[in-house]
């Protein structure tokens, strides 16, 4: 694993982008990493924009905002359009393939995951798309350990949503297995 990784999650408000960032950051703390997380979102509860940046490092972090994302997880077309140009060379983009038509980008690997449609069909809860796409991302990109992430879900998600989130994460993780060498699931 690299010494420092800059992860950006983005999408519409209401998709659980900020919570996903918090769960990811806390999981990295459990792995003994240094973490800095910041988020920004519009005034609306749903439908506006939402962004969560998480920097994970083996050392203390000097500047705590993402300058160039190594990993971009995008869950809406406007967010993809806004941030796909700020990914570092050799970076990787995970996008919700049911929501986004990707652009051709040089030097950046792009992986489509139909997270929202899996969430609707398999988990029967649209809001768990965030855990599906993050699960796939973590399987491929190895940002935090699986056990830390599951433990972080336990501690950060209210009890009544916990089961669905864990299930969604497991589903995403298994989708990630198939992604090795494949571009879209």
């Amino acid at each position, binding site marked *: 694993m690299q010494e420092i990784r800059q992860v950006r999650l983005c999408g519409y408000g209401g998709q659980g982008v900020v919570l996903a960032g918090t769960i990811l950051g806390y999981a990295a*703390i459990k792995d003994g990493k240094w*973490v800095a997380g*910041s988020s920004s979102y519009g005034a609306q509860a749903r439908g506006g924009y939402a962004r969560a940046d998480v920097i994970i490092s083996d050392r203390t972090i*000097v500047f705590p905002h993402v300058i160039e994302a190594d990993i971009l997880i995008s869950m809406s077309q406007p967010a993809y359009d806004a941030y796909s140009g700020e990914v570092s060379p050799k970076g990787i983009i995970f996008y919700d393939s049911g929501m986004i038509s990707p652009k051709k980008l040089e030097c950046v690997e792009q992986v489509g995951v139909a997270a929202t449609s899996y969430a609707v069909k398999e988990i029967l809860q649209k809001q768990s798309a965030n855990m599906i796409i993050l699960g796939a991302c973590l399987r491929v990109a190895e940002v935090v350990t699986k056990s830390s992430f599951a433990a972080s879900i336990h501690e950060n998600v209210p009890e009544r949503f916990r089961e669905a989130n864990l299930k969604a994460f497991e589903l995403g993780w298994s989708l990630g297995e198939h992604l090795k060498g494949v571009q879209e699931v």
Partner: protein
Amino acid sequence: MSFQEIKGTLPAGSYYFSGNEAVAEGAIAAGCRYYAGYPITPSSEIMERIAVRFKEVGGVFMQMEDELASICSVIGAVWAGAKAMTATSGPGFSLMQEAIGYAAITETPLVVVDIQRAGPGTGQATRVGSGDYMQAKWGSHGDYQVIALSPWSVQEMYEHSIEAFNLAEQYRVPVFVMGEEAVAHLRERLEVQATVRVFNRVKKHGTPPFGTDSMDGVPPMPAFGEGERLLVTGSTHDEFGIRKTDDPRAHARLVERINNKILANRGKIANTESWYLDGAEVVVVAYGFTARSALFAVELLRKTGKRAGLLRLKTIWPFPEEAIRDVGRSARKVLVPEMNRGQILGEVMKYARCEVSGLNQTNGEIIHPQRIVREVEAVL
């Protein structure tokens, strides 16, 4: 000195807290058990967490009708013997200034956390600014001193909150934790130790609560109900608290002492941190979140062989004059980046005998490291 090592109020370990959550935990660890406040973005998470945690640790939480009532209630709680605080943002901090003057002349140890946002007025509630530093120093009328700390990380939001209580109790003075939205809403790893070093106010039966033999001393502080004869007034008073509103010597003695007790201890109170100052031609003087942009910039510059350094101000008031004088002697140029129109730039100019310039930004956004890099490169 009555510093003690006490058991912490959180289990030791690593946490993933926002700056505001860390402030609440730092205050509780330091012994704060009274909070009165009025919610305001971007500080509200402090009172939210305090409200929950006080139930667990046994504190008294009051949501007041406004910021004037909040700080007055805190002053009352302190004289009843509690360690007490409030938290707010610029607009609320403005409303508190009259009572801060009262706290200064009555030598009431209290902590105000000001999570700065883009002002003036109600400005932009969710956006960052650093525009409250001069208000912190001069917000109330008359001559008095305060202590103002400038944390740059979630770890320091925690540590400065503890230190703020320790300084307040030691010097019987209002202490401000001058956070900024960018640190208050940042989440970072926070390391919590098993024990906390705290200072509890000095009490001495039968001694005057408002005077000492020396002109820079801090008198012991009784609480109401402890059997002392105690009068507290915002008017000029003698060492026993008796009003002396037409005695020139009493006034001079009081005003000089409440200023000198801080200024004479400036060397002990004012803290700075030096980064890459060896051989630095250009020194960036920065504080709060901006110091993180500055350190990132300085490290980038050093990698390309540019001789840049950083002096970080952890304390803004009392101002670390000596550290600025030293930098002014060794550097060719000093650059002061600030999320305001140059509030600390003027202070740096007073003490640095070299070329000093500002890099100012008032758009409600943080100063990006690349802006500082470009500015330094232009003069190197």
